[in-house]
Each structure stands twice: as structure tokens, then as C-alpha cells.
């Protein structure tokens, strides 16, 4: 579904991503790990459309990805993903309201009623029904990310992009979120890309793991070479043993330093 064809990204002399070519099929769950500043978030932004490739092409169903965020790609950021001036219910209902054509982005009458039913069903699913009338400022961090996911999924995107969505959460709550996310991914048949700095999360959550790292390194010009995907691992068939082997292999790279 998504073809990444010799993609480069650089800012002036600073090469961030270097010659990446990969293909992702519909329904895959790709987790992306790597040292900070290695370009994994940049790569996510290329998919999102907030940044454009310097060379090469990113294709969705054979067509170049539109260089502007759109409803086919949902996003959940680490924070600020929900609208603080809307209640939980309104935040979810904002998805159908903003998806329609028009100037105001408000729903009326029957459209509003059906959007409300749909939003309530989604809140039921992520466990936020009791908080439907609360504002995001009174929610805990985990509840706020549940809301952000619910809101993104209500727009029915084909691709869900997650930029360190659970980075600010407690480990216990993070586990609950993993369960929720896996469940939604399986039942909705989504294609998911997730950036994480938590290696364990990267290994356990998805169906495919990408490790971003620099293959070449010039100590006199640290920005001359960009990162590539140095490991592309299918995770579903992976045994505990190969997991440990991979971890050891990664130990020699800059990832764990």
C-alpha cells in the first residue's frame, strides 16, 4: 500500500534520512525506534505531510502522498492532540463535524444526532463514557491519549500515525494503552506507524520493527550522512531467543548508547 522509494530528507548540509526504500502492506503495524535525533519523527512527518521529501518519492496506492495533512492519515501526538475547549464528547464529534464540507464545521439536526451516537459508541470502546462531559484539562494523561486515539479513529483514517503517544504515561497505564491499541488495530484493519523511544514497546507492540540508525559516520562532519533503516524485523514470528539476539546486536550500535 505504501511505497517508500529512495527517500532522502535533508536540511541544507544536514542530511537526516538517507536513501530509504521500503514497502508496507495494508494492515501492518510498524514500530520505529532509534536514538533521539535519528530522523524517525522526521520520517513520520513525511508520512503525515507536514514535511516533504528532499529526493525520492513516498507513494500511497501508487500515487505520491499529498504534502498536507489529510483525513486518510490520522495522527496522535505525545501531547496537545485534543482540543482543550471542547468536552470529551465534542472532541470526538469534531471528527465528523470537520469532515463535512462547509464554513463553520458545526453539525445540526439528524447529522448531529447520528454523529453523537457514533461518538458515544467510540467513547464506550475506549472507556471514556463516564467522562463524556468533562474537558481535557480535567483528564489524566492516559485518558487524554485515549481521547486522542478515539478522535483520530472516528475520522476513519486508513493509516494511523503515532508520535511517541505513550511517552509521558506511567508504565501501568502504558500497558492498558497497548492493549487498547492492539485491539483497535486488529479489529479496524488499520495500518499503523508508531514512533517510540521505548525499545520494549517497539518490540512487543507491532508486527514489524524498524530501527533507524546511521550506517556511515564521519566524525569531522557528523551531519554529512543521514539515518537509514538498519533493521527491518518481522515481529509476529519472533521468538524470545531472536529477540535477545537482536537486542545484543543493537547493543553495538549507537542506539543504546
Amino acid at each position: 500500500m505504501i511505497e517508500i522509494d529512495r527517500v532522502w530528507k535533508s536540511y541544507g548540509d544536514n542530511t537526516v534520512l538517507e536513501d530509504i526504500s521500503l514497502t508496507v502492506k495494508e494492515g501492518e503495524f510498524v514500530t520505529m525506534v532509534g536514538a533521539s535525533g535519528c530522523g524517525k519523527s522526521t520520517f513520520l512527518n513525511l508520512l503525515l505531510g507536514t514535511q516533504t521529501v528532499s529526493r525520492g518519492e513516498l507513494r500511497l496506492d501508487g500515487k505520491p502522498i499529498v504534502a498536507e495533512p489529510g483525513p486518510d492519515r490520522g495522527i496522535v501526538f505525545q501531547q496537545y492532540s485534543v482540543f482543550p475547549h471542547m468536552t470529551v464528547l465534542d472532541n470526538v464529534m469534531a471528527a465528523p463535524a470537520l469532515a463535512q464540507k462547509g464554513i463553520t464545521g458545526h453539525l445540526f439536526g439528524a447529522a448531529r444526532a447520528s454523529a453523537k451516537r457514533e461518538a458515544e459508541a467510540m467513547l464506550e470502546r475506549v472507556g471514556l463514557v463516564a467522562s463524556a462531559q468533562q474537558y481535557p484539562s480535567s483528564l489524566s494523561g492516559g485518558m487524554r491519549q485515549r481521547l486522542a486515539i478515539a478522535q483520530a479513529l472516528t475520522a476513519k483514517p486508513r493509516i494511523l500515525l503515532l508520535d511517541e503517544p505513550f511517552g509521558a504515561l506511567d508504565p501501568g497505564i502504558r500497558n492498558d494503552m497497548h492493549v487498547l491499541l492492539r485491539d483497535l488495530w486488529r479489529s479496524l484493519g488499520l495500518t499503523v506507524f508508531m514512533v517510540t523511544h521505548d525499545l520494549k514497546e517497539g518490540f512487543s507492540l507491532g508486527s514489524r520493527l524498524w530501527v533507524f540508525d546511521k550506517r556511515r559516520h564521519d566524525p569531522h562532519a557528523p551531519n554529512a550522512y543521514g539515518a537509514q533503516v538498519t533493521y527491518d524485523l518481522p515481529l509476529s514470528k519472533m521468538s524470545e531467543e531472536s529477540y535477545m539476539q537482536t537486542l545484543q546486536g543493537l547493543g553495538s550500535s549507537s542506539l543504546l548508547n
Partner: protein
Amino acid sequence: MERWINKRPSRAVSGMLGLIPLIILLLLYMAGSEARLAENPADKLLPSFEQFSQAIERMAFEPSKRTGEYLFWVDTQSSLIRLGLGVGIASLLGLVVGVLTGALPVVRALFNPLLTVVSLIPPLAILPILFIVLGLGELSKVVLITIGVMPFIARDIQRRTQEIPSEQIIKAQTLGANTSQILLRIILPQIMPRLIDATRLSLGAAWLFLIAAEAIVSTDGLGYRIFLVRRYLAMDVILPYVAWITLLAFLSDWVLAKISYLCFPWDRLDGAER
């Protein structure tokens, strides 16, 4: 707790401490007034409280001998209408200009230099121009207030708009929103409490421009009256008027703060339910 920097008064003590300077000021005034009046009963500089109440009685509760109007209330009404119109129009313009320049980079590039220049013009310096172009009526006074506070509000709103996290704007786009939907549903509602804040901060300047314009050309208004009776050294009228203006300024600020609190529960720190 030896150091002064660590000493904190309790609530009750704090309230009483705050009253002390006010009471001292009042006592000083009364003593000064009494001393001067004992020397010269016709002294006008520091009137007694009895003279104040007579002046208020005359201005507020007896019709004027010349026009038959209750001058104090007529003045209050004229001034408040001018102030309300001026500040209201300035807020509305400031909101539109601020949101559009804050949210749309093209509009910002187009209007920012102009806005910067306009905000640097001292409004009182163009008062003669307003009088020449717009005449000496109500319009020039309202326009002075509007021109005086609009650039401040517009620039403040522009900054607040730019401070809205870009994550929200991107999120709205991934939900399918177009530009006008983002402006009306994401940016505008979040900016409204900021607009009230900016308006509250600009009230002081608005009063300044109002009184200045009334002092120069007017036939009624609070500023007009205090500058008129200055010719007769009528401190017994001026001081109650100043106190009244202060109270009105305080009340308008309080009303705006209350509106903000009641209308935007999501903006409160405690994050109340709807």
C-alpha cells in the same frame, strides 16, 4: 522564620495590612483639610467630606439650573457610551485582525508591517487629525479610543493565536477540516478568553484617551466635567468624579473577568465539568 523573605501574613492579617495605608491616607487628608479650613473657611484645595456630599448632592440628585439635567448621570452615560463603543469596536477589529494575521502566514506577511507602524503612532498625536477629518462630535472621540487600543489588542491576539500548539491545527486537518473550519472551530473559541484578557488590559489606556478627548472638545462627559470645574478650583466636584471613574474602571474590569470565568469553564485551571 527569621528572615523577612520567609514571613507570610495570614489572610486576616494580610487584609488588615492592606487597609493601613488607605486609612493613613484618609486621616492625613482629613487632618490637612481641617487645618486649611480652620485657617480659611473659603479654602478650595482640600474640601471637607461635608462639602463633598453637598457637591455630589448638587451634581447627581438635583437638576442643573441651566439645562434641567442631572449632570452627574448625563456625564456618566455619555462617557460610558463612548468608552463602550470605542473599546467594543477595537476588540472586534483587534480580534479579526489578530486571528487572521496570527493564523494565516500570508495575511501576516501582508499586514504585519502596517500593524507595527500603526501601533507605534501615539494616538493623541493624531487627535487633531481626527477632529479635522471627523469633526468635533462623538465620532472622533470613539475613533480615538478605537485607534488607541486596537493595535495593542490585535497584536496580543496575534501572539496568542500563534501560541496555539501546531499539533491542534495538524490534528484538525487530519480530521478533514478546511481553513475556515479551523479558524471558526479551533482557533476562535480558544482565543475568546484571551480577547477578554487583552480588553481588560487595554481599559486603562481607553480611559486615558476618553478623558483626553473629552477634556479637549466636548459638552458633557466625566472628563469634560472635571476639566470644566478645574477653572473654579472645584476640588469638591473633581475628587468625587475621580473616585467615581476609578470605581467604574474597577467594575468594568470585574465584569469582564466574571464573563470570562462563566463563559469559558475549560479555560479554568481546575478544569470544571460543563
